[in-house]
């Protein structure tokens, strides 16, 4: 998808005025946040698991090249193929080539964020393939021609009414002429439509929650079982995965699985956790005839070699966005690309450029709630601060802010001058604001006074009063 992050401010402001979105976002605290807390309280070793997970992933990243090669060797042994893609363009070309070689017509997809990242749906459709998303949320968005707004619950911004309308519009020709309004009836209708798609598919595409180096397996977690159908029914399976998905052992994957569901949705484990290894073997009852893995870099090796390496520990649980007060007010679309919230505010600038996504590292209060809940202890506020440093060094932040802050620092580094200037300024401000107690408008502070008053100061500064008091005592 085309990034739209440079319009974050305008996107956010319209999101704040969108009543359906606002009521959907209000559910985050009572749903995902409370659910995670219940899991946290019920698992005494939660903190120890976080420490262990961080350790495992740091070790993996320190040896990423070796584990990727080990993973590749195991996939080849199991009869699969591994394709390496440096960029989204390369990844798209590889996928399209596999589909063409298989003389495929219909492609079904299990939900994956890497698929969004490389824009695979549009590319496949442009090449003449029929693509169907099989995750219910993603399917709804495909009908509505919208990007996901959350990495775990992609259609979290959609109301039931909107979905009823979309289904009626798109399923009418398939014989579903009644507008369904009950949740279960809507799910049932989607199930019937999607069942046909599953059976007709030539290629099934999934992402990977983890890739396991010691076995060459990929792991996906879903709550609908659509991932299993996508990977077992079609004759060709394509796994698209980023290079940071690899973990050394099955044991490591199960450690991370214990954290993933709990952190994401407040589930001890998702309804389906599926391990697949290679294509169908001779004695297997089912499974694909061809098994391909496309390993995608897309700037991750640059991150590996920079101070942003901890971001590569991310297991895409979405806890950071569920707990983010900014995401909770503006929703995912405001961020303007695939990954929203705190993790997206780190990833997006790295993947689409700090020029395009310059707002994102700044649209954060550095309140740190995300870091507290991150299951793999990514220091998200510090990473966002690092991006701000990059912006500052590359002079990519607003020049007005730069000048104001430099001026403040320059004066603050000269305490005598600072005290000379601030004392009369605060005295004047206090006098002007004394009767009303504050200001509704303040020149040079319109960002403040647009939404709140500026309280008046008490009068002279503390330093001036304190020194006076000390002199009086003598």
């Amino acid at each position: 998808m085309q990034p739209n992050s440079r319009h974050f401010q305008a996107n956010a402001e319209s999101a704040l005025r969108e009543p359906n979105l606002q009521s959907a976002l209000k559910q985050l605290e009572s749903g995902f946040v409370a659910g995670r807390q219940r899991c946290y309280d019920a698992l005494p070793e939660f903190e120890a698991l976080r420490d262990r997970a961080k350790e495992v992933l740091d070790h993996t990243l320190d040896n990423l090249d070796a584990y990727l090669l080990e993973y590749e060797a195991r996939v080849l042994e199991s009869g699969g193929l591994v394709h390496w893609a440096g960029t989204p363009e390369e990844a798209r070309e590889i996928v399209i080539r596999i589909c063409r070689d298989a003389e495929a017509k219909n492609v079904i997809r299990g939900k994956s964020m890497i698929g969004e990242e490389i824009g695979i749906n549009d590319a496949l459709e442009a090449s003449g393939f029929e693509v169907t998303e099989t995750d219910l949320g993603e399917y709804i968005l495909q009908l509505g021609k919208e990007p996901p707004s959350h990495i775990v619950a992609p259609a979290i911004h959609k109301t039931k009414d909107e979905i009823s309308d979309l289904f009626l519009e798109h399923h009418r020709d398939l014989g579903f002429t009644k507008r369904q309004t009950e949740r279960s009836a809507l799910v049932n209708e989607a199930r019937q439509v999607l069942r046909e798609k599953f059976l007709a598919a030539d290629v099934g595409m999934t992402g990977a929650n983890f890739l396991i180096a010691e076995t060459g397996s990929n792991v996906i977690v879903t709550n609908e079982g659509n991932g299993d159908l996508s990977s077992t029914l079609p004759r060709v399976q394509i796994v698209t995965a980023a290079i940071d998905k690899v973990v050394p052992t099955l044991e490591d994957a199960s450690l991370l699985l214990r954290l993933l569901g709990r952190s994401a949705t407040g589930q001890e484990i998702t309804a389906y956790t599926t391990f697949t290894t290679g294509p169908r073997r001779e004695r297997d009852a089912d499974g694909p005839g061809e098994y391909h893995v496309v390993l995608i870099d897309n700037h991750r090796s640059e991150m590996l070699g920079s101070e942003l390496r901890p971001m590569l520990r991310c297991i895409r649980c979405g806890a950071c966005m569920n707990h983010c007060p900014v995401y909770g007010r503006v929703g995912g679309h405001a961020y303007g690309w695939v990954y929203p919230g705190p993790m997206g505010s780190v990833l997006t600038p790295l993947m689409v450029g700090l020029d395009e996504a310059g707002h994102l590292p700044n649209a954060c209060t550095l309140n740190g709630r995300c870091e507290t809940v991150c299951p793999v202890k990514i220091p998200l506020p510090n990473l966002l601060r690092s991006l701000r440093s990059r912006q500052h060094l590359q002079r990519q932040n607003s020049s007005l802010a730069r000048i104001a802050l430099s001026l403040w620092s320059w004066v603050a580094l000269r305490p005598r001058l600072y005290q000379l200037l601030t004392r009369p300024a605060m005295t004047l401000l206090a006098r002007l604001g004394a009767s009303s107690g504050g200001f509704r408008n303040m020149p040079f502070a319109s960002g403040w006074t647009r939404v709140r008053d500026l309280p008046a100061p008490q009068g002279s500064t503390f330093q001036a009063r304190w020194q006076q008091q000390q002199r009086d005592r003598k």
Partner: protein
Amino acid sequence: MVSTENIHSADSPHVGLFVTCLVDLYRPSVGFAAVKLLEQAGCRVTVPRAQTCCGQPAFNSGDDRHARQLALQVLDAFEEFDYVVGPSASCLGTIRCHYPEMFADDAALLPRIEALSAKSHELVSFLVDVLGVETVEAGFDHCVTYHDSCSALRELGIKSQPRKLLASVSGLELNELQGTDICCGFGGTFCVKYPEISGRMAADKVNAAEASGADTLLAGDLGCLLNLAGKMRREGKPTRVYHIAEVLANMADCKSIGEGDD
């Protein structure tokens, strides 16, 4: 440099008061309340003149050069004291948690910076955790609610300490705020760069304060307090806003933040 050495003996802990720029400029009464609380707890308090800002605005804006220069100014002004204490978790969190990050690559300065960080404390947690203060001599006949600042809660682990001291204020009743671990929307320069988002966050907090049934909102950080007091005024809410130090020092007889004459 002026101090109150005459009041205390030489072996009482010598505290350098880090006033913080917002208290210095906006709310000197909080500084005086801090001095009173520290002296009551047996400290010798000095207010170095050569202090202004801890450097957090520069640090959080990616201006690492100025942030380091300001950190060195703090180091020079405060290195001599037994403790550095200030009425703000945000500023003291910067000194305690982020100064060592700023000098991580500077082997020559890092030990001095780490020593400074280790002895720097937010006021209320210093009173409770370091000095073992359990009660204060104060009265405040109001129902209050307490806003935890993010830096207090998550950088410095301050949650029980203010509540412990508030419980000893006679006449004071505490009603907890719903969603007290959620940011109020101040966020330093965030609040002026993204006013609409910040304003919505502040509005939610103001509404939660009203829903708590309290007539007064307290917090330990002036950034949050100015944001929330400003939003209360804009929304026409009657809730009054004070810094917790003013209440603990029995000095909340002055006008509340943003309160006018009328």
